């Protein structure tokens, strides 16, 4: 309990009590942001409804419970010295943070430039590949990559950054004790073994819907640059970008096909004046000025048999049959192909063909 003062602990308790009202309020995001900025008493008045008076009494009589933080977890509030500086002066910022991975490490991560890469869960292959490539390039260039944790773009971001042996920061919507969604737990373990996971609520017994936009605003405030890879044109999918714009963060988007629903949000951001990002280099130029920082690709030194097979695949020998035509043993070729596939250098295309990934052959 040492990291959280009684005042912030009480705020966190109050938010839990008001979850239904907040979830309702989150249907209108501008109102939701203004709600989150309200002090405790006014917030209770605004959304307490019939329970308002009762809550005021309970609030006055509130005593800190001797809750035990889970193992490997730390909790800090905005009055703690380790609280992220980028959040400290914002009324909108969360009052408390649960951290998995240690506050020291969190401090280290936030000392670097933070880039949030966000996007929809219903991502296309194009979005997934782009997100992975951006995260890999930025992580290799020494930037801290942050995202949420969900299927689609966020998963691709973490996978990409981890491929470059980078450290990532994930902002969770509902507590850091358990991984939600549960199927991400292997990825979650890898993220928290080198990076950090943070969340606003501590041990919420259930995930409230307002956790989703609340997570987006935390991400936006933490980052110097928010890149939206793919998003539908809906307020919740663009929440992170809108908060970042309102609080003078760089906002960038990846251009997409005009006909694709998951590119409508990003394309409309670009119309509205967001910067365009096509590669990690574009993002670095935005952050540091053109030509000052050069993007690094993680070293892709391949062992000789792998490199040879990769080049053959690139030259159009895209099936097992073509690769073994010259007399190579099919067992050896299969081994090399699996290795390349696991390293994300080739993928399986239509009809089981092998297709080199973007950038795989450049290195």
């Amino acid at each position, binding site marked *: 309990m040492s990291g959280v003062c009684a005042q912030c602990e009480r705020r966190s308790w109050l938010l839990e009590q008001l979850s239904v009202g907040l979830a309702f309020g989150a249907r209108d995001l501008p109102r939701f942001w203004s709600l989150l900025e309200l002090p405790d008493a006014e917030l209770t008045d605004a959304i307490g409804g019939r329970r308002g008076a009762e809550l005021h009494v309970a609030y006055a009589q509130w005593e800190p419970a001797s809750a035990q933080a889970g193992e490997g977890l730390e909790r800090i509030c905005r009055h703690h010295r380790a609280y992220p500086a980028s959040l400290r002066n914002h009324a909108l910022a969360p009052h408390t943070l649960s951290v998995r991975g240690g506050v020291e490490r969190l401090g280290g991560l936030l000392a670097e430039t933070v880039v949030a890469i966000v996007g929809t869960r219903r991502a296309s292959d194009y979005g997934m590949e782009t997100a992975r490539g951006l995260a890999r390039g930025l992580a290799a260039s020494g930037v801290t990559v942050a995202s949420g944790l969900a299927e689609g773009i966020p998963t691709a971001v973490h996978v990409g950054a981890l491929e470059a042996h980078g450290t990532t920061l994930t902002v969770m919507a509902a507590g850091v004790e358990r991984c939600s969604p549960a199927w991400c737990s292997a990825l979650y373990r890898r993220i928290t073994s080198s990076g950090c996971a943070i969340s606003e609520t501590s041990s919420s017994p259930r995930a409230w819907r307002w956790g989703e936009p609340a997570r987006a605003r935390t991400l936006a405030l933490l980052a110097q640059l928010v890149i939206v890879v793919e998003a539908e044109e809906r307020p919740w999918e663009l929440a992170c970008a809108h908060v970042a714009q309102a609080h003078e963060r760089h906002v960038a988007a990846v251009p997409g096909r005009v006909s694709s629903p998951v590119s409508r949000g990003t394309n409309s951001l670009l119309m509205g004046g967001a910067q365009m990002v096509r590669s990690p280099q574009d993002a670095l130029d935005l952050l540091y000025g053109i030509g000052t920082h050069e993007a690094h690709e993680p070293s892709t030194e391949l062992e000789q048999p792998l490199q040879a097979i990769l080049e053959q695949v690139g030259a159009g020998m895209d099936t097992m*049959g073509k690769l073994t035509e010259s007399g190579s043993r099919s067992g050896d070729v299969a081994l090399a192909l699996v290795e390349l596939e696991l390293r994300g250098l080739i993928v399986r295309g239509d009809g089981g063909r092998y297709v080199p990934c973007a950038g795989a052959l450049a290195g």
Partner: protein
Amino acid sequence: MLARARTFTIEGLHARAVTVEVDIRPGLPAFAIVGLADAAVREARDRVHAAVLNSGYEFPARRITANLAPADVPKVGPGFDLAIACGVLAASGQIPVDLLDTHALFGELSLDGEVRASHGTLAVAEATMKAGLRMLVLGPARAREATLVEGLAVGVVERLSSAVRVLSGGAPDPLPQPSRPPLRSAARRQPDLGDVRGQPEAVRALTIAAAGAHNSLLSGPPGTGKTMLAQRLPSILPPLERSEAIEVMRIHSVTGRLTGGELLSERPFRAPHHSITTAGLIGGARRGWVGEVVLAHNGVLFLDELSEFARPTLEALRQPLEDGRVAIVRARHSAVYPARFMLMAATNPCPCGYAGEDERCRCSEADLARHRRRLSGPLLDRIDLLVTMERAAVDHIGGELATSSAHVREQVIEARERQAARLREEGILVNAQMDARMLRRHVKLDEGGKRVLAASRERGLLSARGQHRALRVARTIADLERSERVKHEHLASAFSLRPEAGLSGRRAA
């Protein structure tokens, strides 16, 4: 006077005993058949009448009632004619009654008294044996089928008069000779793998599929030989065991598809057109209608152009693929049929067929999405491996021949023996039937294999179920290469054959 004759009716794939009771008493001449008989049985009245008279016997001009007992079992088919006719003759005192009770009679009569064969002879022969009757008396056409039942006395009768002779203690007619010489090897008459030019990887994948009895998906552009390859699958599968052959013959006998009575050695190969309905595939359109999955029992069900099949039809394949049987329940009948088959499906990589071939593919994103939706889902979950066919094969038309079916079949049989020896205590025969528990026990990976498996899970390339499939296929590849341990390269080969790879679509990461 009353006489009782013994016969059988077909219920599902089995025969059920029916007693024909014939009673003749004074009254106005009449001939009634009672006891839940279908149209073919009711028409027996006219056939029996003519056959008895044309064989030189007397048809009593009195009140005749034939009752088929038990009365609540529906009777189908014309196989009751012989029993009814003999019952009439016995009841009218033209033949002795005593032998009638120990002989089963089965066959249709022609108007001139000739005995014709009926569907389901094999099932009837098995039931006769089980019921402990002394002899099965039947027409010559399918008599050889009945001789497959060991220890059963088969009395062949060409005419009604011969049946009268047998029932009076005389000798039956001689068993007809087989119409064609028995085939020693199934491969002789079938298309041979040796006809295939090039495509070494596809042939290898087919070999793996045959060795482990893995359900497979053939993918490739039009004209690359998907159908050709699939048709050669039975020629590399091990020949039917005797017990399997009897099961297959019983099914084909009941449905009237069996010609000749020799023990089958080739596995059935069923290739229904994609316009097939669910009832056509599974069965149950009407009583006794057997679906394609049942006809493919112990053989191969080949679904060409998989994406063109109606979705509900494909969904209906789940139970047979899972349990190896279909339970058909309709308002008036229900039956369980065996349906353990190897599924071979073929599809183009996209609706136009040219996906991945430079600029030739003309499919829109929507077409591709529809194609994937059709293919993915629960059916693909049951498919263990993907056989990819290539356009490049065209250069090979003058090229070297693939190995012959006989050679590949030897490899397959050897691999199956290894599997059977390992899996005997589990009560299964082939790798394709291994469940998660058996996989843990029988698939021992080396270090490299373990690493590949862990990494593929982390990158989201394989689901838990996908892993099981890859392990099953890897086990078969190791069996083909005579290795007790599943090595890194075996798993890598299995991994490159995984069916998910055939459908580009969304990937988890």
